């Protein structure tokens, strides 16, 4: 009954030192305390940890004394019997005891396996002091990011674009991932296309063409014939020509392509305004390049803009058709509209007109004198005014009544001179009256019957004078002070034609090349632009001139009360509607139906 205790320890350079000791006893104690037979200086072991007993020739019993166990071939136990000849490995904390049989003794080989502290373990000093152990490597992170970016943000959209059906009428986005390519939100007008990049970007590496725009904007008018446009465009300087050549080298369309003015991806909201310079580039010096143009040069409303040239009726032809011509307001043109109408008299606050207005005010809503609104009614959109209408706007004063039958007033027919003549003739009865009874029969006729007031005189007198009185009444009606002639220029009977009046043409829009909306100027009084109160003739053209407009309006970027770009009045795409600068403000302007005269 003996144990062979073999202790293996390591020198600093890793060499093993083996010490053997034979103990002639049947039982050995194991523990951290120095007095144990097997002294294991290991803090994981109790001072008195276990006993190893020889219980037979080859049998060995190992049992814990305290609460902590030990391991046998890796298993945790508190008590175990071992065949020493077969061998086993016991583990106590960081120590290992190999159990075996050597001669007649049970051999116990003790060695320390674990380092006594973490720091004592072998360490790669360059690695542990560096941060590299704590962070993912630069290379794998770089690769991961690169692969993620290139596959999701480049390859995916390109493959998706290449694989989309060539002809697809479904209005859904076919290209996946290209939203990440959008450099900014589209304007409100194109918001619906936000998901469908390929609607405009039709071909890869081909810039957006006009065709894409015209697919929807089929009704966009050309500004001018392409040849004229090309001639009008200012030739770029050296820098401009260089930029243009670079742009062309990269396949950009233009100049004059839709996208040159209508820039997209500038963010939500309305599309950015086209600046006045865009117009001024050509129109500022247009005469130099297009000498035959009828247009005057203009580059800034406040400083370089020609006087307005309204379309006026300069004369009335023999056939009654007016001759219309654009004349500059600087020439003080007259508008031969065919009417006789003194504005000053009608707007006076002291004369008979004003008296009449007060009399009729209750019924027609007049004030103490007539005002513009009493005759001039705006159109539904408030932009312009309806033609003044005789029946609704004049006739309450300028009555055409000439007879009363019972309770019914008979009036002359406005606008029909022939009917007027016929009605007057009928009224004055150009035929003889019915013969009185006294003139019939066989009764003796006395000479006195021919005297004034007697039957003969009355009968034959009427027969003789009736036609003459009708002619006089008609002539009176058409004379300067007559019911027709006081407003109209009458035409006397000649060449088989009877009485007539010159046709009246009320111009609804004088400035056909520019847009003017009265609704947009509601804050102003009529008189501040139209000097109607001083006008004595209907042919006075009461349009305000350029100078008058410039009291409020100046060029774009100017300090004027209303900085005005070209697009406020002029329409690049030359349709009948308002220019876009007006249209974009439409939402802010009150509906035209609420138009009230100030």
């Amino acid at each position, binding site marked *: 009954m003996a144990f062979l205790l073999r202790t293996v320890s390591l020198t600093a350079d890793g060499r093993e030192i083996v010490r053997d000791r034979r103990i002639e006893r049947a039982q050995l104690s194991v523990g951290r305390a120095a007095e144990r037979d097997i002294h294991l200086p290991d803090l994981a072991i109790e001072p008195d940890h276990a006993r190893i007993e020889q219980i037979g020739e080859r049998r060995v019993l190992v049992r814990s004394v305290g609460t902590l166990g030990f391991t046998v071939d890796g298993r945790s136990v508190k008590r175990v019997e071992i065949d020493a000849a077969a061998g086993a490995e016991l583990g106590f904390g960081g120590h290992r005891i190999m159990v075996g049989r050597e001669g007649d003794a049970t051999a116990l080989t003790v060695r320390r396996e674990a380092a006594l502290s973490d720091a004592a373990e072998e360490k790669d000093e360059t690695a542990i002091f560096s941060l590299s152990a704590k962070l993912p490597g630069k290379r794998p992170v770089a690769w991961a990011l690169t692969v993620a970016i290139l596959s999701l943000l480049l390859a995916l959209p390109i493959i998706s674009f290449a694989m989309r059906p060539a002809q697809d009428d479904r209005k859904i986005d076919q290209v996946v991932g290209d939203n990440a390519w959008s450099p900014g939100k589209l304007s409100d007008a194109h918001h619906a296309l936000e998901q469908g990049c390929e609607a405009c970007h039709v071909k890869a590496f081909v*810039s957006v063409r006009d065709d894409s725009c015209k697919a929807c904007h089929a009704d966009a008018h050309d500004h001018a014939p392409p040849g004229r446009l090309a001639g009008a465009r200012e030739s770029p300087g050296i820098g401009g020509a260089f930029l243009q050549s670079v742009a062309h080298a990269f396949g950009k369309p233009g100049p004059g392509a839709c996208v040159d003015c209508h820039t997209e991806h500038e963010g939500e909201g309305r599309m950015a305004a086209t600046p006045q310079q865009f117009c001024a580039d050509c129109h500022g010096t247009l005469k130099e390049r297009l000498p035959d143009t009828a247009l005057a040069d203009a580059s800034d409303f406040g400083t370089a803009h020609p006087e307005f040239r309204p379309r006026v009726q300069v004369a009335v032809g023999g056939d009654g058709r007016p001759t219309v011509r654009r004349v500059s307001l600087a020439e003080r043109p007259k508008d031969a509209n065919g009417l006789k109408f003194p504005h000053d008299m009608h707007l006076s606050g002291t004369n008979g007109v004003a008296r009449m207005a007060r009399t009729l005010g209750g019924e027609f809503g007049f004030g103490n004198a007539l005002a513009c609104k009493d005759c001039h009614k705006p159109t539904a959109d408030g932009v312009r005014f309806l033609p003044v209408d005789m029946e609704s706007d004049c006739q309450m004063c300028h009555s055409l009544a000439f007879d009363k039958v019972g309770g019914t007033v008979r009036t002359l027919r406005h606008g029909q001179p022939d009917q007027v003549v016929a009605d007057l003739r009928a009224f004055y009865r150009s035929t003889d009256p019915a013969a009185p009874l006294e003139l019939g029969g066989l009764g003796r006729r006395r000479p006195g019957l021919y005297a004034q007031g007697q039957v003969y005189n009355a009968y034959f007198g009427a027969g003789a004078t009736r036609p003459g009185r009708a002619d006089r009444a008609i002539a009176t009606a058409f004379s300067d002070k007559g019911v027709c002639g006081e407003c109209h220029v009458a035409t006397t009977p000649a060449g088989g034609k009877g009485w007539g009046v010159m046709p009246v043409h009320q111009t609804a829009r004088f400035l056909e090349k520019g847009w003017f909306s009265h609704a947009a100027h509601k804050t102003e009084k009529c008189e501040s632009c139209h000097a109607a109160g001083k006008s004595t003739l209907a042919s006075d053209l009461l349009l305000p001139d350029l100078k008058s407009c410039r009291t409020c309006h100046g060029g774009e970027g100017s300090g004027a009360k209303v900085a005005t770009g070209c697009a406020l009045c002029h329409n690049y795409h030359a349709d009948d509607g308002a220019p876009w600068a007006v249209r974009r403000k439409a939402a802010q302007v009150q509906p035209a139906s609420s138009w009230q005269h100030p």
Partner: protein
Amino acid sequence: MRSTQIARQERQAALHDGFLRYAGYKWLKIAGGISVFTILTYVLIDVTPRHNGGSWYGYTLGTIGVALILWLTALGVRKRTMTPGRWSLKAWTSAHVYLGLSLIVIGTLHTGFQLGWNVHTLAWALMMLVILSGLFGIAVYAALPTQLSTNRDQMTEAQMLEALRAIDRQLHEAAQPLTSDMAQVVQSSLDQDAFGGSAWNRLSGHYPRCATAAALDRVRVVTGPQADLGHDPLEKIDTLLDRKQAMLARLRRHLRLRALLEVWLYVHVPATIALLAALLAHIVSVFFYW
């Protein structure tokens, strides 16, 4: 004679100057000039409807920017060969730093401040990340080496580790007479990995679950109230744990300073490579949907 003397002095001065003050801040002046010029042109050139990357001016800045980025990235290759002179690595690094900073102006004005959730802004953001991490790197290189040296107190890293091992050995020895549970407390300190913890622990220098600190607390519960008569082995443990904690504090300060000196590169380098990828996606996508 005089001129050669001056030249020699200058050469010597240049040898001692860092890359930041290389050649009398030559590249700082050049980069500053470029930035001011770019800002002036940005303000003075009237691009309609407004500045963005898609105007001729935007494309010009973009082209300059991408050329600059490629050249800046080339430092990664260039730094592996050290040469002296006008094209020395120091000159190159100086230019890298200052031209890289001017890229903040060039790149940002290229965007026209139109930023969004897209590949273009991703490229800009990565560029800014690279530049700002580089700026951080310069800042720590300027400030931390002194602190690092002071903290080390002429110890090498190997000596720090050996000092820790020595304390551990003494702790192990001193703890032999202890009862099981107190021995466990000391063992927990011995088992502690002084280099453990997360990257955040390293960078912040805070280790809230330090086993040594916990062990010292446990020991102090016993040793605190009693007089130190030299009989109780715990008194020695107390002293040793205290020394270990001081050593750990020095080691951790060292690790923190080293981590701060290193960490910017873990952003700068991968972000640069990611930036190149994002730039490729940015440029290709622009021309793809031209």
